[in-house]
């Protein structure tokens, strides 16, 4: 029998977990701010200007962006997996990060003056460019397996172009791009949070509207088609949503691997695979996961901040293997 926890209870539980994670994560950081000072500053005005600045301009944006970025990446992964019926589908497989990496490379070499604006913008445009290529190819490819393979091919192609530019370019630019590709929440601000949140809410509304249509794809394209669903249009719509969501996140946070692949699998383990529950579970758990990964990135080594993508990969792969082994054992 499929474990099917009550949806409302699950949402309340996950919401509580998220609030606790966000609050707890705010207490971590280089500045010595006590928990009581922190909550005073959050609820009322701070007496201490430094604390006010640290909390409102550094910690809060960082934690909130971490939450929405984790939620967005996990959602995009869950939707790509369900719409392509492929448990290995991940936003990064569609060449989004390679495209963003190419954009970041071009910006790092060509626009060194205004890099703080040029890099995320170029990364976003690069991600859109790669996904447009996958889109163009998908017009001639109806099968989801072909679409994934096209994404992988585009990904390698764009990475090769980036590597060539970096190989022949400035070593400083190479460092910048490599660090950016490892992912970080160090440079984010509240405007990034509002933008990612807006795209996330828009995406969730569309996904929730079509959640039963996405479920119907589970039994095959022809089966879904007999229920009146235009399978090609549905798949393209979901691909476009995942692309916009991932491109926005990658533009500000860099490459954060493994969240889109791993979190949906963990959520499936507890909530089952129906799209509605999967999306709700992935949003909250993905958000909390990235908040804690960022806490580790900031506090694991004194005076050194680790790139977030390295930690997601380490924690993710170990956690993933544990879940898989448990699944194998329970299946007999």
């Amino acid at each position, binding site marked *: 029998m499929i474990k099917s926890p009550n949806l409302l209870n699950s949402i309340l539980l996950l919401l509580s977990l998220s609030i606790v994670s966000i609050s707890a994560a705010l207490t971590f950081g280089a500045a010595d701010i006590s928990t009581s000072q922190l909550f005073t500053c959050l609820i009322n005005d701070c007496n201490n200007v430094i604390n006010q600045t640290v909390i409102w301009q550094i910690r809060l944006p960082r934690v909130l962006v971490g939450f929405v970025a984790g939620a967005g990446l996990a959602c995009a992964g869950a939707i790509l997996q369900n719409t392509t019926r492929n448990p290995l589908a991940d936003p990064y497989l569609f060449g989004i990060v390679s495209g963003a990496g190419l954009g970041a490379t071009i910006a790092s070499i060509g626009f060194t003056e205004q890099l703080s604006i040029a890099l995320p913008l170029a990364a976003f445009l690069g991600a859109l460019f790669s996904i447009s290529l996958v889109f163009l190819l998908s017009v001639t490819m109806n099968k989801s397996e072909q679409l994934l393979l096209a994404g992988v091919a585009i990904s390698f192609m764009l990475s090769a172009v980036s590597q060539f530019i970096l190989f022949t370019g400035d070593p400083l630019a190479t460092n910048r791009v490599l660090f950016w590709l490892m992912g970080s929440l160090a440079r984010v601000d509240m405007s990034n949070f509002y933008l990612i949140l807006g795209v996330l809410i828009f995406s969730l509304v569309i996904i929730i509207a079509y959640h*039963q249509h996405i479920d119907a794809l589970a039994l095959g394209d022809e089966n879904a088609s007999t229920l009146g*669903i235009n399978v090609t249009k549905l798949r393209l719509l979901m691909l476009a949503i995942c692309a916009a969501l991932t491109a926005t996140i990658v533009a500000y946070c860099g490459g954060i691997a493994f969240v889109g692949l791993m979190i949906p699998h963990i959520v499936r383990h507890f909530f089952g695979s129906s799209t509605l529950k999967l999306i709700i579970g992935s949003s909250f758990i993905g958000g909390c996961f990235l908040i804690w990964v960022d806490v580790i990135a900031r506090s694991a080594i004194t005076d050194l901040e680790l790139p977030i993508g390295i930690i997601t990969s380490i924690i993710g792969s170990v956690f993933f293997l544990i879940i898989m082994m448990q699944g194998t054992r329970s299946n007999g």
Partner: protein
Amino acid sequence: MHPLLEIKDLSWSIETKNILKKLNWSLYQGEILGIIGPNGAGKTSLLRCIIQHITNYQGTINFAGKNISTLSRQYIAQHIAVVNQVNEPVFKLCVIDVIRMGLLPYKALFSAETSADTLAINQALEKTDLTSLKNEEFTHLSGGEQQRTLIARALVQKTDVLILDEPTNHLDVYYQHQILQLVKSLNLTVIMTIHDLNLAHDYCSRLLLLDKGKLIADGAVNEVLEPSQLRGVFGLPCQPFISSDGKFTKIHFQASCLTNPQNDND
């Protein structure tokens, strides 16, 4: 009586290979129409043309007097339900999730399940005897239970016509009869492709015999299951067994006469 479905001069080919050749037949309300024939006869292709998964055919398919190619996907889904050969989902779905999909042709985006929808799902569960299995994982069910789940989904779809593609494939004798008795008890207009001629005899009200894309025979069951006709199509001599009360009971093919393994190009 006007036909519910009318096939006129239907042909379909892949490159130079003709899969369906100028088929003409009609389906009337309440019939259980069995489509029989050897592998490669075009049975499944014919069904795929009807449900518009194949659209580049020549000829016309009319549903309730309207050219089916002009009808929307949603309209077709509200009038024709399809039970395909079972396709195992990659991810876990429970029985009731699969059955609930039958509501999709009627549902606007964001609309919630009404009490009438819940009633329809519960009735479908009861009719297919799946109530106790409704929260089970679909892939953990037996082949017969999976077929019943898809039939329950078709019932929730509330259509005029039910199309089944090889509904008894991979099922043991018990489940073969269970599924076909269920289909017969629904009092729907049914089209099904079926390999087992004895089952076709027992459960269909009319048969179409196809061979290499051509319609060889269309008529009452006993007329179509005529030994010389079957021998011509299947390449094996056969003999009907008649019971003491004069009823047709079984077709027996004489495999010892097998000389030329033909028609195996499906």
